[in-house]
């Protein structure tokens, strides 16, 4: 029993950074922009969050710094792709490499230091319930925030005028412009949101999950988050499900290594990534369905006709 709870707790902790990064990127892609720089924004968020937490001893300040750092990275991406009309794919790749390098530079003095434990929700009685207590009422605050974000984004896109406008811009930016919506302005807003979410996901790694700083510690999670958005067919609920699926596989393969399963550890480590590919192939086998869900203007640069 104890073991199952531990595994489940591990899954939540492994999945949460993916939830943050994926939900942010999902919103960005809904507006018709593909930001491949998620990995870079995450790692910059990770070092910003970690360093500020160490320097100030304040977790809130640390998380805030990660949000700002991620958003600034996204702002750079937005300036290049939205204002200067640079190619989104190339710019996104460059942003990832830039972020990895920048974080390594900033993090030189922080290797080996450790942050304390992130505050957790503590409701008398409820949090002390056996088994479900720790799982449902004893998580750190960011876990609840990630779930609320997913619900919020889903609600925003389905129920609000702002969400409808962003979906419309992702679907046909020329028409949106002709009706009179400021396409580039909305895309900047969504990009900032996406960057903030990625930064938050990075901070979750360095401040909550481990909590210490190591170079390249995002280890491809940004790419997984990008894959999740496609796997989820641009639906927030499915992105959450996907994040927990991949988190689950990551944790299970770790535990199975612990049990001494007769498979080389390297193969088990591949498992979450292989699952990503497999799921993507299966999902995208129905081309019509994917086309229907995908924002039609994804990666297309928008230039207002004069």
């Amino acid at each position, binding site marked *: 029993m104890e073991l199952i709870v531990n595994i489940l707790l591990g899954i939540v902790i492994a999945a949460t950074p993916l939830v943050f990064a994926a939900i942010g990127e999902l919103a960005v892609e809904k507006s018709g922009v593909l930001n491949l720089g998620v990995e870079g924004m995450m790692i910059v968020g990770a070092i910003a969050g970690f360093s500020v937490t160490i320097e100030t001893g304040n977790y809130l300040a640390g998380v805030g710094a990660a949000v700002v750092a991620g958003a600034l990275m996204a702002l750079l991406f937005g300036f290049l792709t939205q204002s200067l009309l640079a190619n989104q794919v190339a710019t996104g790749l460059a942003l990832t490499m830039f972020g990895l390098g920048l974080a390594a530079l900033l993090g030189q003095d922080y290797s080996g230091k450790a942050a304390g434990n992130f505050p957790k929700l503590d409701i008398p009685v409820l949090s002390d319930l056996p088994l479900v207590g720790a799982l449902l009422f004893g998580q750190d605050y960011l876990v609840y925030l990630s779930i609320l974000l997913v619900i919020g984004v889903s609600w925003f896109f389905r129920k609000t*005028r702002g969400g*409808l*406008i962003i*979906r*419309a811009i992702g*679907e*046909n930016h*020329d*028409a*949106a412009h*002709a*009706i*009179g*919506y400021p396409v580039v302005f909305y895309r900047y807003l969504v990009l900032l949101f996406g960057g903030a979410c990625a930064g938050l996901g990075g901070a979750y790694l360095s401040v909550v999950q481990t909590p210490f700083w190591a170079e390249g510690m995002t280890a491809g999670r940004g790419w997984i988050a990008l894959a999740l958005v496609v796997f989820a067919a641009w639906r927030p609920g499915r992105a959450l499900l996907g994040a927990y699926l991949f988190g689950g596989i990551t944790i299970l393969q770790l535990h199975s290594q612990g049990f001494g399963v007769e498979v080389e550890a390297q193969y088990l480590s591949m498992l979450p990534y292989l699952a990503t590919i497999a799921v993507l192939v299966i999902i995208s086998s129905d*081309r*019509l*369905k994917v*086309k*229907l869900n995908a924002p*039609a203007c994804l990666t297309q640069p928008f230039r207002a006709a*004069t």
Partner: protein
Amino acid sequence: MNGVPDPLLRLEGIARAFPGVLANDDISFSVNEGEIHALLGENGAGKSTLIKIIYGVLRPDAGTMTLRGKPFAPHRPSEARAEGIGMIFQHFSLFEALTVAENIALGISPELARGDLRGRIVEVSTRYGLRLDPDRMVGDLSVGQRQRVEIVRCLLQDPRLIIMDEPTSVLTPQEVETLFETLRRLAGEGCSILYISHKLEEIRALCDHATILRGGKVVATCTPSEETARSLAEMMLGETLSPPATDRRTPGDVRLRLNELSVEADSPFGTDLADIALEVRSGEVVGIAGVAGNGQTLLMSALIGETLAGRPDAIQLNGRPIGRMPPHGRRKAGICFVPEERLGHAAVPDMSLTENVILSARVRKGLSRNSFLNLPRAARYAGDVVARFSVKTAGIDHAARSLSGGNLQKFVVGREIMQEPSVLVASQPTWGVDAGAAAFIQEALIQLARDGAAVLVISQDLDELFAISDRIAVIAAGPPGRRPHARADRPADGWTAARPIGLARGGGARPCLGWSRGASPQGRCRC
């Protein structure tokens, strides 16, 4: 007040320049309450710029506008909408993956979008006979239904002036008739309509007044019903035009045969092709008529070889099965193509004209040998095309995108015709080009057929098809569950341009066009 009411909208001295062009030059006219006012002019005459200024998308460099006597200078479309100006776009500003209600909500002010929007959509659409289901996905609607969405969206805002930019270019004749009834009714209720078109017969039938633009200037104003289509055209063009001559030719042997061609669409809102059967003979021009979205794109793609047919013998060229051959193999076998989109499909925008001839004429004109390009030869060929088709360009080493629409289209058509194909397939060969270039291109297509080639023209412009075709076939989607069996395939002479559909209905063949309304994407097509 001196007894004469102010006009609804008055423009005085409106001017707007773009780099290198004066799009609007000192334009003045006015639109009265309840009037249907035509704005007539060729492509590039400045109509689009002018309506963008009225709708607040662009701002004028000089000049003033007054609305009901008050100064009017909208900075944004929302400001124009707040003043009661509505706009029906030429290329619909709709979102395919959203529902009708969502599309409408996006186009009106947030205050209007609140509350029971669906109920009001149903109410307005019923009142004007424009039936609409608010919960349907726009991608599933026919073109005529999509225009209804735009009109209902406009009407929900209680407009005083509706601007319509080429509203009939994508409609069936029946849909045009319905649209005109709606417009006359609106005008009767006091709403003014600014109607932009270059279709002269429509303007004569519908509009109370016309302002004619040429080269950014107002060149004439008139009462269209007192003019003839010819006199309107001459005012619009500033020159006299002779219609393309079509003497009847005796068709030779079958060059291109579509044998029960069926292809499935690869996009969620595409139309499948089902059992298309058609023959094109040497020496004749065959037109394929049909409203946009009835499978023309897929048919073109299957003919070019971008989408392969299921069976090789579904497409036969001179008796040879080419249904599963790639595009270059087909060119080699003797069939050339003019796709609908000039920039991006028929020509690569950023490549020079020389490079663009290599892309399509490499095989037939021997512009490469052992994988090496023969550039001098390609340049010579490009030069020949430019000379013979009087393409206005700064030089063959300039990028394709630097050419104007009409000139690039002449270049593309010329590039294909000068390869001396056995069969030429052209999709919308004169779409969006000026009348002079259009006449030139039509003449060239007819000449090609006269020289013995088989020419297949896919077009939504019925007037064009009547002008150049020997026979016309119709591509249309049938109602779900019923497969159309009609072959509306008859000599072009058998139809008159005025009421082609009415005549076809009276004849033996069932017109496919009658089914295109309410066509679903699952609908099937047949010639």
